[in-house]
């Protein structure tokens, strides 16, 4: 298992390099640059700015320089924020995004998993249809719609929960409730569908028939025998999905005005802040690789058949 992890992490290095190179070239292929604005600066200043950030060099050389910086752990200065480095900006935003993502995923696993199992146990009954209706709604109504609606009802109309922010520059946990719910709804939808389908299949398998034939109580059959098998597709889904939600959600962070890296990423791309975009891309790719690996390892732990390969 350890050998596998090490092997996968080594293979990840060329993958990361390829991602960096592709993102780097794509960013520079977009028209405009970080210093193109409504108001023009004197050409002398523009020239000096470009020289400072190495933008006057050929793209290949810029890339080598950037990689050299990465080796030393230097993500470079932000090209739009004049007083901050990329590391500083990411360090300010990443904790909020990570907390949001992890909480939303935890909530989604609990609720989505539970709903999925409940639906599977009463297949084609009212319970099942109700769960699937919720799932369809969760998929069809994106956070862009749900977020402002919750905000308007719970925050403005009824005044139950604060509608945005984190309580100024402190952190109020109650402020995270609405964003976490909004972020988790689409996840709940997907997880409950996956769980339902997989559970239905598992319940028809020989292993479960055997368990029931042995006379085990139904609760034990489901929780002890069916669930570990049925949860496998969910595990494969959760790895990359968790990386996605932890790397921040532009919509959630904009609607609820939270300091996360998802919003930072989109704004940086619009403003052509090359270094900041690269920094977030790097973190996102690293998270994907890491969480995919974690999902694979968990998959193996849960499923003895996968270990032999």
């Amino acid at each position, binding site marked *: 298992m350890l050998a596998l992890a090490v092997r996968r992490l080594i293979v990840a290095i060329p993958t990361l390099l390829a991602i960096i190179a592709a993102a780097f070239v794509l960013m520079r292929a977009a*028209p*405009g*640059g970080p*210093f*193109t*604005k*409504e*108001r*023009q*600066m*004197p*050409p*002398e*200043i523009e020239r*000096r*700015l470009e020289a*400072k950030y190495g933008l006057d060099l050929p793209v290949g050389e810029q890339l080598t320089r950037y990689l050299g910086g990465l080796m030393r752990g230097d993500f470079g200065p932000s090209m*739009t*924020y*004049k*007083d*901050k480095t990329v590391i*500083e*900006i990411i360090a*300010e*935003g990443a904790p909020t995004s990570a907390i949001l993502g992890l909480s939303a995923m935890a909530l989604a696993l609990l609720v989505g998993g539970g709903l999925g199992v409940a639906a599977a146990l009463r297949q084609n009954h009212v319970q099942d249809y109700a769960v699937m209706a919720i799932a369809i709604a969760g998929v069809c109504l994106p956070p862009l719609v749900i977020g*402002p609606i919750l*905000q*308007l009802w719970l*925050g*403005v109309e009824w*005044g139950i929960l*604060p*509608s*945005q*922010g*984190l*309580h*100024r*520059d*402190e*952190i*109020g*946990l*109650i*402020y995270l409730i609405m964003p976490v719910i909004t972020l988790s709804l689409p996840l709940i939808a997907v997880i409950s569908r996956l769980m339902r389908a997989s559970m239905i299949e598992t319940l028809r398998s020989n292993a479960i028939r055997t368990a029931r034939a042995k006379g085990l109580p139904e609760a034990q059959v489901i929780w002890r025998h069916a669930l570990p098998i049925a949860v496998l597709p969910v595990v494969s889904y959760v790895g990359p999905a968790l990386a996605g939600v932890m790397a921040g959600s532009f919509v959630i962070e*904009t*609607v609820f*005005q*939270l*300091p996360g890296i998802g*919003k*930072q990423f989109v*704004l940086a791309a*619009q*403003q*052509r802040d090359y270094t900041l975009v690269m920094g977030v891309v790097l973190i996102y790719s690293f998270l994907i690789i890491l969480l995919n690996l974690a999902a694979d390892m968990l998959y193996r732990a849960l499923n003895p058949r996968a270990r032999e390969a």
Partner: protein
Amino acid sequence: MPFWTDRRRLLAGAAGLGASASLGACANGRIIGFDKVNKTLDIANQGEPLSLDPHKATGTWENNIIGNMLLGLTTEDAHAEPIPGMAERWETSEDGLTWTFFLRSARWSDGEPCDAHDFEFALKRILNPETLSEYAAILYPIKNAEAVNKGELPPDEVGVTAIDDLTFEIRLEHPAPYLPQLLKHYTAYPIPKHIYERHGNDWVKPENIAVNGPYTLRRWWSNYIVHLEKNPGFYDAANVVLEHLYFYPGNDVNASARKVMSGESGWSTLFPLSQTAELRRALPGYVRIAPWLVCGYFSFNMTRPPFDDKRVRQALSMAYDREFVVEQILREGSDAAYKFVPPGIAGYPATARYSWADLPMEERKREAERLLRAAGYGPNNPLRFAFSHRNTSDNPRVAVVVQSDWTSIAPWVTVELRGTEVQVHYANLRAKNFDVGDGGWVADYNDAKNYLYLLETRTGDQNYPGYSNPEYDRLMRESDFEPDAERRAQLMFEAEQMMLEDAPICMSTFGSSRNLVHPDLTGYEDNIEDQHRARWFGIRS
């Protein structure tokens, strides 16, 4: 099972700790956007600051924050009129070229004296090309400023001198009666020399900064919040009421408006015009719409056909129905523009106007067709071109009106619409890679020159139409060297009128500032610069 009980206790303890920590800080309570008891104000600002260093800032939303921390030689009152700031009074030499400022004895928030040397240091730093200030060009009226900023002279040659601790002299390239207007701009703020010498460009970080203004920087959490706290060492601190200011980057104007509605924000510096009526109902007394130093205009690319022909430019300017755009699209808070310099600019009678402005629309369209035919266009030689516009806010909707107005001149006029991202759009305008392109301009200081210089030949790429009229350049240059304010305004007026007849640009609209302000916040006055410093704010109980 001791293991379990231990773990439970541990969890309970952790939960308790977390709860008490956040309760202790009251962080779970609701925010009161305008808290009259704790004297705090939460402000939905219209953008994220990209720098709080006045030498690197470029946006009005940065100005909204920095202008509460630092104070120039002059500063603004609640109506944005220049009043004495760090300078108590000043004298001007007879030729208008040398200004002497007499400073008040004041201190930085860390107790060090804030004096003429800080001003000298700051102005030399911003004009030093190595500082990479994008806005330094505003200070070019100062002697040698342009040469220093272009790297032709060393920074020490900038025409500013600290004669002694409290006497500061500024020498100018040409008389500039608007200097008190200019010196309240953030580019002319002082910075604490002693802190810069210790921390370099990090002087502006919350842990290092010292300020000479009413508020100091507590925290800046990127893309989330800037927290300012009252500076007890400010010379007028006794009259500053609010203790804490919280600025949020309201990238989403709808969210900003919701925040005011839920009471979590006491002031939003922007709201969507389309919601004006609804906001008036929901928030009586909050909506503030006022004329602002902003105009919208379309540039004709004069460097190539068909717009190298004055008749074509004139025809299109005439056929565009500004009134329709104002009444049907932008609605309240905007005016049809028949001149370049917005009404209400200081010291400018502003009577320039398109000569055809009062003709009825039908007649203007007929005249437009006649002009286009005279320029050689017609059924056998159709006029085709593209209208490039920014794909943000109301611009795409205006573009549709423009297209329909121009194509209705005659069936042989075809206009293609091209909407692009703002940055790409301006890059295209600069590179003269367009036929007709829209654009907006917000003045940096309250003077007609801040508009009219855009069309001078020496302005370069930012003269989007590529207008180059030696007579216009001469009038503008002459106005620069004219010490008499009235004569100067007259010269600029002549230049503007001449330019309008040449039609390098088609004027569209004059805009307005749109704020949502808590009705109990006193000291907030509508003004043409849309500048509202928190030191004037008070609480109506």
